């Protein structure tokens, strides 16, 4: 895991009106997304999370559907590809089994604001366009293995360009921002409302990530959604 922060994160969504500066304490973040191989090991030691045994409330019928069986990857799946077809519940269980947790939205975005050389590349239009290009590419093609491209400023790989990633508070985003207003939670979900309340409107990739996470329920799995773990820094560690 990489050690990131502490720092002040200039968020595009304000927690309270006008307050965009989030105090982030130091945290640890997996350098790479969780892979098929790693999750298979988790299934071996925690068979209640295999797709044959998982409680349907915790994972929909797409869960691990790309594996050839409940306990084997099969020849069409590369062990080093990021794990996909995984729900929030199962991702959380995996991280907890390692004494970790899912990253929080601010932590993930703080780490993802970086490119190879800079901690915050969000003002660079070329960098922003590259991310948008990936979002515009259809998801049908086979996934690349992890860590094929350069790590970012923090030594973290694949926050962009590989898969969407779960965060711990994926569903709390909009409620916190707008829940005082009637129908507020819906505002960013459709139409131009995201443009109204968002800072740095030109960073459309963030809006698209918010939209993606908001379309999900905790049991959902999709072909292009994976995760990595995070952890708090222990006192004296």
């Amino acid at each position, binding site marked *: 895991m990489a050690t990131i922060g502490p720092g002040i994160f200039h968020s595009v969504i304000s927690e309270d009106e006008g307050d965009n500066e989030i105090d982030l304490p130091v945290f640890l973040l997996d350098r790479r997304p969780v892979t098929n191989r790693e999750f298979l090991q988790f299934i071996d030691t925690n068979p209640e999370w295999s797709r044959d045994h998982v409680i349907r409330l915790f994972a929909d019928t*797409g869960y691990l559907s790309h594996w050839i069986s409940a306990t084997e990857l099969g020849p069409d799946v590369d062990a080093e590809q990021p794990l996909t077809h995984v729900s929030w519940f199962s991702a959380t269980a995996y991280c907890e089994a390692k004494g970790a947790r899912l990253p929080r939205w601010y932590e993930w975005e703080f780490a993802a604001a970086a490119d190879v050389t800079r901690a915050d590349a969000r003002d660079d*239009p070329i960098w922003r*366009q590259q991310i*948008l*290009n990936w*979002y*515009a*590419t*259809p*998801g*049908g093609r086979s996934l690349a293995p992890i860590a094929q491209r350069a790590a970012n400023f923090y030594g973290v790989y694949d926050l962009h360009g590989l898969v969407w990633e779960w965060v711990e508070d994926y569903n709390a985003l909009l409620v916190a921002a707008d829940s005082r207003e009637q*129908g507020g939670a*819906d505002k*960013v*979900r*459709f*139409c*131009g*409302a*995201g*443009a109204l309340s968002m800072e740095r409107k*030109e960073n*459309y990739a963030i*809006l*698209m990530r*918010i*939209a*993606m996470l*908001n*379309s*999900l329920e905790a049991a*959902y*799995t*999709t*072909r*292009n959604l994976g995760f990595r773990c995070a952890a708090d820094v222990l006192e004296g560690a």
Partner: protein
Amino acid sequence: MKNGRLTSSATIGMLLCLTFSLVSCDAPSQTNTKAADYRTIMDTGGSAAGDLGAPVGEPIVATLTSAPNVPPPIDRDTPAKVIVNLEVRELEMPISEGVMYTFWTFGGTVPGSFIRVRQGDTIEFHLANHPSSKMPHNIDLHAVTGSGGGASSSFTAPGHESQFTFKALNQGLFVYHCATAPVGMHVANGMYGLILVEPPEGLPPVDREYYVMQGDFYTVGKYREKGHQEFDMQKAIDENATYVLFNGSEGALVGDNALRANTGETIRLFVGNGGPNLVSSFHVIGEIFDKVFSEGGTHYQENVQTTLVPAGGSAMIEFRVEVPGTLVIVDHSIFRAFNKGALGMIKVDGPEDLAVYTGKEVDSVYLGDKAQDLAIVAEVAAAQSTTGAVTVTQQIAAGEVLFAGTCSVCHQADGSGLATVFPPLANSDFFLSDRTRAIDIVLNGLTGPVTVNGERYDSIMPPMSQLNDDEIANILTYSLNSWGNDSGRVTQDEVSERRASTERTPGAAR
């Protein structure tokens, strides 16, 4: 959509009645029968009169069609429950010959599938998002009375399906589109279509019905720059469209894909404009619109040449064709038609009617390369851009098509020019003696006197720098090998080099 025509006496009567009814607001029908008549004739009653009761009979699964076709007219006189199954797919498809783009689609096409229902119907709407999609999507149908037009109830992650139900209270021709943030990008990638809510009595029968939807597209590369093109957010914000197209691709309504009709037939066009940005000045060259239900509403205007179709809006247009030929559908903001692709065709077959029109077909003068089959151009460009290897023969073939569209207007199809006005290219000493100068002239134009084959010409050739390097190379190679010109070749790299080392004429493209 009823007859909205008024006689002049009825108009005066109506104005008088409205004046009186403003004074006494209660029960105007008691004080003024003329006011009641006006409302009965003119007013459909809006959504308040749109609830025609509970659905009757078994649920119907709606027939959806892809443009330019529409489902058959509704043939019932009671409201029904209609089930609509629409699937979102993200697909890479050609936007122009040799140019690929990632479209996000309703039903696998741009525009999306055409939905046809009746006022008062209860529509159970299923929106599925294909598992291969990268993005979540939803739908806002302008026909829906309800939150977000359905968008708040249809937000769907990839590999999932949403359902919501609404009653179509208002008749009309409505746009639908995706409304997932960032909305402009979803719309710009092709996520729009039309839903027709027929009036209870249906539409009068016509011979042909077609579905045409305009949209503006924004790519990082230039117009017709070959290869895969990405969406350009900054151009979309600046409203600087790269392509303006009918039905999602440059060839959609041209050549073999042209719409068809016979003389004497009445055509109804369901016209939409998905935007995201541009308003259309919709016109059909060679015809007048007998009826325009502007903005897809209930009343029509007659005898219209060009009608505005708002972004996120529609128009229903009817006209009768009397003579054979090719009618050209354009956005009359004319650079969009000739430089961005906003061009389609209706081919009308049948006997001539010389009393109505005696002239030649329109396309030989107007359209030039638009009527040509651009497939060879694309094939050659693809070879040029991928392997870098293209033969002289291929260049000549591509160049011939391009020459016909751009150069033959002045220099003539046989390269002979126009005496004292436009110099010849065939056996031209001026042209053949200096290849670099030839490239420069195509790029930057030429003004002033020149002597060609002993004759003096003093005219203006405008710069053609809007053509891409491969296009100029192919045109020149074709010219060097035609009409008795012996041989020769110009490569794409030579043109690039000249483009870089000479200045653009003020006002010329890049």
